[in-house]
C-alpha cells in the first residue's frame, strides 16, 4: 500500500515538476518518472514473487468511497509489463529533443499517463479504477493532441481518440456501476462475491457491455477506429505507451470482467471470439496494405489484440469441458500480451526514431536506412520478426502456446466449440501470414534498398538514448524468446489469480513443455542449431569464391541493363501490397480515382493521367461516417428548437403545463 502510494505521489510530483524551467524539465521529470517506474515495477515483481496481493483502503481520498487498492498477481503482471515499456519510453523521450517535446503540457501529461498506467491494475474498486482509467485516458489525449498546431490529422486524431475512448469509458462505467449496485460495496472482491447471485441475463448484458467498452480500449474492430489515428499521431514515446501498455489494459479489463462475473455462458465467449477473429483479420489486412509506418503498427496492434481476445475466448469456451486447455489458453494469452507489449513498443520507439531522423512516416518516402541508421534498423528487424511470430523471438512462443491451447481444447469439445476452434486457428494462421506481409513490407520498403526521398537519404542515426530505449525492449524480446522460462512463473501466477492453473505447462529456461500433450518447443535449441548451421555455411561461403580476383564485388542493382537506376524503380509499399489488396478487394473496397485528360487536338493522345487510390478504413467509412453525418443533420435541425421566438419558447412551457396538469390530476 505504501509503495503504491509512493508511486502515486512520485507520479503526481513528476506531473507538477513539469512546471520547472525548460532547461532542466525533461531530465528532472524523466528522472522522477524513472523512479516511479522502478518502484512500480519492483512492487509488481514483489507481488508476483510472493504471490500475495497488496490490499489497502483509505477513505481520506476521493469523497464517498475512498480509494481501494488490490494489486493481485494478475494486475502485477500488467503493471510490470507497463513498467518495462515505460522505462524504455522514458529513456527514448529524453533523447527526443525537437518537436517541442519538452513543453509543460507534454511533460506533465506524460508523467501522469505513465503513473496512471502503472496504477490502473492496482485499483481495488470501481471508483478507484474509473478515476485512474479516466486519468489515463485524459493524459493520453493530451499526448495524442500534442502536435495539433502542425497537422490537421492530429486534430482529427485527438477528436476520434477522445470521443471513442470516452464512449468506451461510458460503457465500462455502466457495466461496473450495475455490478457495484448489486454488491455490498464497490470493491471488486465484493462484486465478485455477489455477481453470481445476479440473473444470467444481467450478467450476460454486463459482460457484453464491458467487452465492448474494454474492447474499444484494446482496439477491437469495429471500435478500433481511433487507434490508427491516435497511435500514428502521438509522439513516439507516447505511441509506444499507447500500444505497449494502454491497449493491454483493455485486455486486463476483459480478464477483470471474467474474474468479476465468472466464466459465464458459452455465447459470451463466442461473441468475444467473433470480435477477436474480426479484429485479427481486419487489423492484419489493413496492416498489410497500409503505407504509413505508424498506422501499420497501429493496425497490427488491433490484430494482436484480436489474437489475445481469441485466446481469452478459447479459455472461456474450454472452461466447461477442459480445464487444462482453458488455463493454458489463459496463460498463452498473457504471454502474448507481454510479448506484444515488448515488441510493439520496440517498433513504435524505432518508428519514432525514424520519424525523428527523417520527418517521414510514409514507407514510400523512407528506405535505405539500414546503412545510415544501423542500430534503429536492427531493433526494428527484431521487433518485426517478433511480431511476425518467428522463432526464436518472444512472439513465436506466445503464438505457439495459443495454438497448443486450441489443439488441446478440441478434446471433449462440443460441435460449436470445435467449429469455433477451427475458425480461431484459421484466423490465427491467416493473420500470421498477413502480419508477415505487413512487416516484411515495413522493413523491406522502409529500411532496406535505396533511400526513396531526400530526407531518408540524409538521415543520420538518432541520439544515444533513442537508440538505447528500443534496444532494451528488443533485447527483452530476444531474451524472452529464447528463454521463455524467465517469465512463465510470473505469468502462471497471474493466471492463477483468475482461475486455478491446470495446464500442466512447465517451462525450462529454454522452452515450453506440455507434459500432458506431449508437446514441447525449445526456441533456444532451434536458435542455437540454426546459428551453428549458419556459421558453417558462412564459413563455406568464405572458403568458396574464385581463386583469383576479388571474392565480393559491389555493383549497381540489376535493372535489365538500364543506364539510370533510380529509387523510383523499387517496389513501393503500395505496389508491394497490391496483390493482397486485389485478393481482398471485396473486403477493403479501396477507392480508385482515375483521371485521364486528353490533349486538346485529339482524344487519342493523352496529356496527363492522374491516378489516386485511397485505402481508408472501411469500418470508419461505412459505419462511423454515416452516424456522424446523421448527428450533424440532427444537430442542425435541432437549432430550430431555439429559433429565437419567445412565443415558441413559452409555448413549450404552456403545452407541457397543460398536459401535465391534466395528466397529474
Amino acid at each position, binding site marked *: 500500500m505504501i509503495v503504491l502510494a509512493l508511486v502515486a505521489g512520485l507520479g503526481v510530483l513528476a506531473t507538477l515538476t513539469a512546471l520547472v524551467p525548460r532547461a532542466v524539465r525533461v531530465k528532472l521529470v524523466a528522472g522522477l518518472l524513472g523512479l516511479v517506474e522502478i518502484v512500480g515495477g519492483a512492487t509488481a515483481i514483489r507481488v508476483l514473487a510472493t504471490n500475495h496481493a497488496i490490499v489497502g483502503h483509505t*477513505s*481520506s*481520498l*476521493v*469523497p*464517498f*468511497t*475512498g480509494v481501494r487498492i488490490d494489486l493481485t498477481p494478475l494486475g502485477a503482471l500488467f503493471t510490470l509489463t507497463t513498467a518495462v515499456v515505460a522505462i524504455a519510453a522514458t529513456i527514448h523521450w529524453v533523447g527526443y529533443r525537437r518537436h517541442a517535446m519538452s513543453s509543460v*503540457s507534454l511533460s506533465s501529461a506524460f508523467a501522469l499517463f505513465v503513473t496512471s498506467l502503472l496504477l490502473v491494475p492496482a485499483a481495488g474498486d*470501481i*471508483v478507484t479504477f*474509473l*478515476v485512474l482509467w*479516466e*486519468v489515463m*485516458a*485524459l493524459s493520453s489525449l493530451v499526448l495524442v493532441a500534442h502536435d*495539433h*498546431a*502542425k497537422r490537421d490529422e*492530429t*486534430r482529427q486524431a*485527438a*477528436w476520434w481518440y*477522445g*470521443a471513442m475512448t*470516452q*464512449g468506451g469509458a*461510458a*460503457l465500462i*462505467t*455502466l457495466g461496473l*456501476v*450495475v455490478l*457495484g*449496485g*448489486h454488491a455490498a460495496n*464497490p470493491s471488486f472482491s465484493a462484486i465478485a462475491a455477489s455477481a453470481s447471485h445476479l440473473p444470467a441475463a444481467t450478467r450476460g448484458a454486463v459482460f457484453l457491455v464491458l467487452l465492448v467498452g474494454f474492447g474499444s480500449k484494446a482496439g477491437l474492430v469495429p471500435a478500433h477506429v481511433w487507434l490508427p489515428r491516435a497511435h500514428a499521431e502521438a509522439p513516439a514515446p507516447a505511441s509506444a505507451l499507447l500500444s505497449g501498455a494502454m491497449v493491454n489494459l483493455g485486455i486486463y479489463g476483459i480478464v477483470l470482467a471474467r474474474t468479476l462475473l465468472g466464466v459465464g455462458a458459452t455465447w459470451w465467449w463466442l461473441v468475444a471470439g467473433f470480435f477477436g477473429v474480426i479484429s485479427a483479420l481486419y487489423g492484419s489486412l489493413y496492416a498489410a496494405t497500409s503505407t504509413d509506418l505508424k498506422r501499420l503498427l497501429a493496425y497490427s496492434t488491433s490484430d494482436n489484440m484480436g489474437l489475445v481476445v481469441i485466446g481469452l475466448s478459447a479459455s472461456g469456451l474450454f472452461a466447461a469441458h477442459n480445464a487444462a486447455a482453458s488455463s493454458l489458453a489463459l496463460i498463452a494469452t498473457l504471454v502474448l500480451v507481454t510479448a506484444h507489449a515488448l515488441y510493439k513498443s520496440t517498433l513504435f520507439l524505432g518508428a519514432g526514431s525514424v520519424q525523428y531522423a527523417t520527418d517521414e512516416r510514409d514507407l514510400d518516402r523512407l528506405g535505405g536506412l539500414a546503412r545510415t541508421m544501423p542500430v534503429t534498423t536492427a531493433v526494428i528487424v527484431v521487433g518485426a520478426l517478433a511480431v511476425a511470430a518467428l522463432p526464436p523471438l518472444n512472439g513465436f512462443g506466445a503464438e505457439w502456446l495459443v495454438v497448443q491451447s486450441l489443439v488441446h481444447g478440441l478434446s471433449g469439445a462440443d460441435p460449436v466449440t470445435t467449429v469455433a476452434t477451427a475458425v480461431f486457428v484459421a484466423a490465427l494462421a491467416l493473420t500470421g501470414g498477413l502480419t508477415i506481409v505487413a512487416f516484411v513490407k515495413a522493413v523491406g520498403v522502409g529500411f532496406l534498398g535505396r533511400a526513396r526521398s531526400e530526407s531518408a537519404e540524409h538521415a543520420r542515426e538518432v541520439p544515444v538514448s533513442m537508440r538505447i530505449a528500443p534496444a532494451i525492449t528488443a533485447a527483452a524480446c530476444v531474451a524472452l524468446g529464447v528463454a521463455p522460462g524467465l517469465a512463465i512463473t510470473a505469468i502462471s501466477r497471474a493466471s492463477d489469480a483468475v482461475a486455478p492453473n491446470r495446464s500442466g505447462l512447465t517451462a525450462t529456461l529454454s522452452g515450453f513443455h506440455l507434459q500432458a500433450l506431449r508437446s514441447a518447443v525449445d526456441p533456444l535449441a532451434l536458435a542455437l542449431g540454426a546459428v551453428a548451421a549458419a556459421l558453417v555455411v558462412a564459413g563455406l561461403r568464405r572458403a568458396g569464391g574464385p581463386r583469383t580476383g576479388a571474392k565480393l564485388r559491389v555493383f549497381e542493382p540489376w535493372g535489365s541493363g538500364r543506364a539510370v537506376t533510380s529509387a523510383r524503380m523499387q517496389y513501393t509499399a503500395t505496389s508491394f501490397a497490391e496483390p493482397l489488396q486485389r485478393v481482398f478487394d471485396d473486403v477493403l473496397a479501396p477507392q480508385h480515382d482515375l483521371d485521364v485528360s486528353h490533349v486538346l487536338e485529339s482524344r487519342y493522345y493523352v496529356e496527363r493521367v492522374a491516378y489516386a487510390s485511397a485505402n481508408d478504413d472501411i469500418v470508419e467509412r461505412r459505419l462511423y461516417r454515416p452516424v456522424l453525418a446523421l*448527428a*450533424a443533420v*440532427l*444537430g*442542425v435541425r*435541432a*437549432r430550430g*428548437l*431555439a429559433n429565437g421566438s*419567445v412565443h*415558441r*419558447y*413559452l409555448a*413549450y*412551457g404552456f*403545452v*407541457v*403545463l397543460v398536459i*401535465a*396538469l391534466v395528466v*397529474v*390530476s
Partner: protein
Amino acid sequence: MVYWLFLAPLVAGLVAMLSPWRPAVAWLGATSALVVLVLGVGLAVRVEHSGPIGSGVLRVDALAAFLVIVIGAVSLLATVRSVSYLSNEVQAGHSTLRHAALYSTLVQGFIAAMVLAVVANNLGVLWVAIEATTVVTTFLVGHHRTPAALEASWKYIIICSVGIAVAFLGTTVLYLAGVHAHVANPLDFTSLAAHAALLNAPVVRLAFTLIVFGYGTKAGLVPLFSWLPDAHGQAPAPVSALMSGVLLSVALSAILRLRVIAVSTLGPTFPRVLLLAIGIATLVVAAVMLLAQRDLKRLLAYSSMEHMGIMTVAAGVGGPLALSGVLLHILGHGLVKGVLFLDAGEVLRLEGTTRIARLGGLLARRPALGAILAIGLAGLLGLPPFSIFVSELTMLRAEAGAGLWWVAAVVLGVLAIILAAILAHGRTMLLGPSEQSTRSPVSLVAPLGVALGAAVWFGLVAWPLAHLLSLAAGIVA
C-alpha cells in the same frame, strides 16, 4: 449569525449604489463575497457540531450551509473577476460609471437574494427570494444595453416570471394542503416535512408538479429552458458565471427540499417519474442543442442544462448516495462553470467573438486562456481529477444501485454524445496553428487556476466536505 450573512452584501451594495464607482468599490464587493464564504464555512462548522441554527423563517441546516459555501465561493470568483471586468469596460468606454455602479449594486443584491433563497425555511420567503433573483438579474443580463442584451433580458424575465408564477401557484396549493392537514405552520419546510404524511396526496401531487415546473424554469429544466442560453450568452461574464454556477443550483435545491415532502406524502414513485422524465428530457435537449452549437457561451449554457438534467435525474432516483452526488456536483459544476464563463468572457473581450468557428487555434494564440478553457471543458465533461467526475459516478452508482440501470445507461449514453460534441467544438476552438502567441496576466489566470484547483481538490480529497455533504444529503435524501 444567520442575519450576518446579509449584512456584507447589503453594505457593499449600498456603498456601490451611493458612491461613484471605482475599483475599490468592486474590491469591496469581492470582500463581501469573501465574507459570505467565510460565514458559510463558519456556519457549516457550527452545523456539523451542533445541528441546525435558527428556526422560523430563516434556518441554516447542513444543506443551507453547504449552499452558502457554494454561493460564497462562486461569488468570490465572480466578484474578483468583476473588478478587472468593470475596469476594462469603463476604460474601453463600453460602460459608464453609473452602469458600473448599478452593476456592482445589483450583483450584491443578487448574492443576497440567493443566500436568502437557500437559508429560507419558509416556502413563501423562498419564492420571494427566487423571484427577487429574477428581477435583479434582468438588468445584469441587459448590462450591455445592446439590442441583443435587451432581447435576452426580455426573454429572461418573461419566461422566468411565468415559471416563477407557476411555482407560486404550486406553493399556494401546497399551503392549502398544509392548512387542511392542520399543520401548525403550513409554509414552513420543517413542519411540512414533519407532517408530510398527513397531507392530501392528490393536492400535493398537483403542487409538486407545479413547483417542479416553476422552479425548474429557473433551474434551466425542460420545458421553459430557452431563456438560459440567451441570458448566459448576453450577460457580462461574471454574471453568467454566477447565474450558471449557482443560481440554477439554488433553484434546483428548492426542488430538492420540496421533493422530500412529496416523497413522504406520495411515496417515491411519482416524484421519481416526474423528475426522471424532466431530467432526461433536459439532458436530451441539451445534447441535441450541443451537437451543432456555434457559440461558446451558448455551448456553456447548454452544458449547464445538461448538468441540471443529470442532477435532476439523480434527485429523482433519490437516496443518500444520489443526493451526496448531487450536492458535490453542485459545487463542482459551480466552480468549473464559473471559471469557464469567466474565461469565455475574456475570450470575448480579446478576440471580439465567441463564435466557435472563429476561435481556431486559441491554445496556440492565447496559451493561458486556451489551457483554462481546455482544462475547464475537461472538468465539465466529467473527467477526473475534477470533482464532477466523482459526483457523476456517485449519481450513476446510486441509479444502478436503485435498480434503475436503464437510467444510468441513458444518462451515460447522452453524456457520451455530449462529450463527443463538446470535444469536436473544443477541437475547433482550441487546436490548430496560430502565428503569434500572447501571454495572459496573472490576475486573470490566478483566480481561475485556484478555482480549478479547488474543483480538483474536492474530487480527490474527502476533507473537509465529506461529512458536511453526508449531513446535507441526509436532509434531502
